[in-house]
């Protein structure tokens, strides 16, 4: 489908939403929207897609309560706003949309989280992507480095051929917010696998130590919890170039969630997990067992960390022997460790010893 076809379809779907609200009011009902519950309890593993999607539990957003009524009003404002953007061939960032709501009176958002969530609600109900609504996220600066050649259509409409090792500086190739085919084509790669790294410090360490060339790796900087485009790009590389993916993060509860959103699908975006998640991605560390085995320097778990770990024990995505074991070990230790704690044994230890050992364990050494 071309862009304008997708936009036209988005307009139709948005019209349906407004029409449903209109019909409910004109037939004297309390208007409501029914949306799949976006909770930990309502994600199910889809065996065909091998990712986690929303289950069948539905929730209602009704005008009976103040919050629900406000959200419905905001929905109407957003619908109008999106239609207007499509008509005028404009687009806006999610943050701009949040600020535009300043003029919406009672429909004003109280935080950007709220407006982002509503944009996602609309994706779910309209079965569209937010790009179809002309909404885009801020650039988040995630980057990739390694022997990979792509073409990107730049802002002037020219196709640019870029090798992500030779044509870029030390900060790597910046992953744009749109990584779909119309914008970005993957041409060729000499790499054997992708290593997705949580922190910038470790990304730089691997680059400085020449890990990408020595091991044939593409280094992807996740920058914390990865943005949609980063996950989508990794997924495309995995599918189109048949590159296995390993994820290398800190050893703490939040990093486990970073891995979960790369490999299993995030709860927030479970409606599009099949576009974003790479089910074959492997976690190589830092694991709780690494903290013990490598005698890593640690920090104490905070109360928030402990709560996060306990929540993960109830998260269906972590419900297997490996994760239960890791989470329980970490709770027992009461400790967490950063990736860069490996520097205890010297700057080269991570690339000379730790990663080769860990990759060997999963048969990729």
């Amino acid at each position, binding site marked *: 489908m071309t862009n304008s076809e997708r936009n036209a379809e988005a307009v139709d779907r948005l019209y349906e939403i407004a029409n449903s609200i*209109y019909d409910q*009011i004109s037939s*004297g009902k*309390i208007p409501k929207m029914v949306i799949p*519950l976006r909770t930990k309890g309502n994600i199910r593993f889809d065996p065909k897609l091998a990712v986690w999607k929303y289950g069948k539990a539905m929730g209602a957003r009704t005008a*009976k309560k103040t919050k*629900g009524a406000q959200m419905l009003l905001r929905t109407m404002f957003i619908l*109008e706003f999106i239609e207007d953007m499509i008509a005028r061939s404009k687009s806006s960032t999610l943050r701009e949309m949040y600020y535009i709501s300043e003029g919406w009176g009672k429909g004003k958002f109280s935080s950007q989280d709220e407006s982002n969530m509503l944009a996602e609600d609309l994706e779910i109900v309209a079965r569209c992507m937010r790009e179809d609504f002309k909404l885009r996220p801020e650039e988040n600066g995630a980057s990739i480095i390694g022997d990979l050649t792509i073409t990107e259509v730049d802002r002037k409409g020219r196709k640019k051929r870029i090798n992500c090792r030779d044509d870029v500086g030390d900060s790597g190739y910046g992953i744009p917010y749109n990584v779909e085919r119309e914008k970005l084509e993957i041409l060729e790669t000499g790499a054997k696998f992708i290593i997705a790294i949580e922190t910038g410090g470790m990304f730089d360490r691997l680059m400085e130590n020449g890990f990408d060339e020595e091991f044939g790796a593409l280094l992807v900087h996740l920058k914390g919890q990865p943005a949609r485009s980063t996950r989508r790009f990794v997924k495309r590389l995995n599918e189109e170039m048949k590159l296995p993916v390993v994820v290398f993060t800190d050893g703490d509860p939040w990093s486990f*969630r970073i891995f979960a959103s790369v490999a299993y699908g995030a709860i927030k975006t479970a409606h599009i997990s099949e576009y974003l998640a790479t089910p074959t991605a492997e976690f190589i560390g830092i694991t709780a067992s690494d903290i013990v085995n490598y005698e890593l320097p640690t920090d104490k778990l905070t109360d928030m960390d402990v709560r996060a770990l306990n929540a993960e024990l109830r998260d269906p995505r972590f419900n297997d022997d490996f994760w239960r074991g890791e989470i329980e070990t970490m709770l027992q230790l009461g400790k967490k460790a950063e990736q860069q704690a490996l520097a205890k044994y010297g700057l080269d230890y991570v690339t000379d010893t730790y990663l080769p050992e860990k990759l060997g364990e999963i048969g990729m050494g």
Partner: protein
Amino acid sequence: MRTSNRNSTLLRSQGSPRSTPAILFGGNLPGDQPVTILRFANRVPLLYQQGACVITKAIEGMDWRRYGLEQRGGEGVPFGPAIILVHVASTKIPFTSEAKEAIANIPEMQEEIQLALKACGRKLKTHLNKRETKGKTKAKFEIVREILPLIAEKSAKIVGKDVPSLTGTITKIMNVVWIDDSITFEKDRYKVKVKVYNYTPKSQSFNLHALVPEGALDEKATVPRPSEIKEGGKVSWELKRIPSTGDVEVSFDLTGLDAESYDENELYASGINPVSIIGADPLPGDWDLERIRVEEVEAPAEEEAEEEEVDYDEQGEVLNDEQ
């Protein structure tokens, strides 16, 4: 006894002839502090040895949580924006010492004070409950007055049709008669406005009553004309056939009162099921209705059985995986 804040509500128990408690609640009193206890014996304030006094013991020994105050474990001095005042009057007061600083802890005395305090507490709870109901209804009122019309207008604009009538939706959300009253003071007169909104699916007729300070009502400035004005400041209006989602306004002036002496309207309704009306109480029994005939109104139809539905916006789960 007076306090600096005029919003406090004074609730007086008829209790025993020997002990008279009062609870002042609200206003600008801090909500996160223990309540202030004021003790009196035969009109003399007791300033010292609060902990040794039977009044304190009586207060500490009661479970105030059921009366709407916070209390850890259901004993001790309760927390909340309140002042508890207890006066003990007797020909013989059993003080703990000659200094007359505290009253001795005699079980009968404690029991007596607690009985009176409980009566007082019940009134406090009634007051708080009423306030809560009014608050909830007020939230719905904002939905139907401000948010819903905008939703209807916007959706109509998007689909390119006329703005739909809101009657059905409004009455389904509210399903009550809502009374919103206000008091303003200007040029030595209190102007009272009582707005009656019928948010039920049917048209409604009932009687509205107000109890005002005797002799203060300015009859000429009263709109519409009352159907009855009686001794003791009892004013009644017959409100006939307010259509569904319609409203009427009753206004009157009070003169000859000091500034800040009148801060709450006493409004009552008769001839309507009390559960269908928010903002006016059922008419008390001592208000004898001479000319006004009270029609018993059948109870409103049971609310439609609501489907078990999860509220999407109130799951309270944080979806962010980020720290």
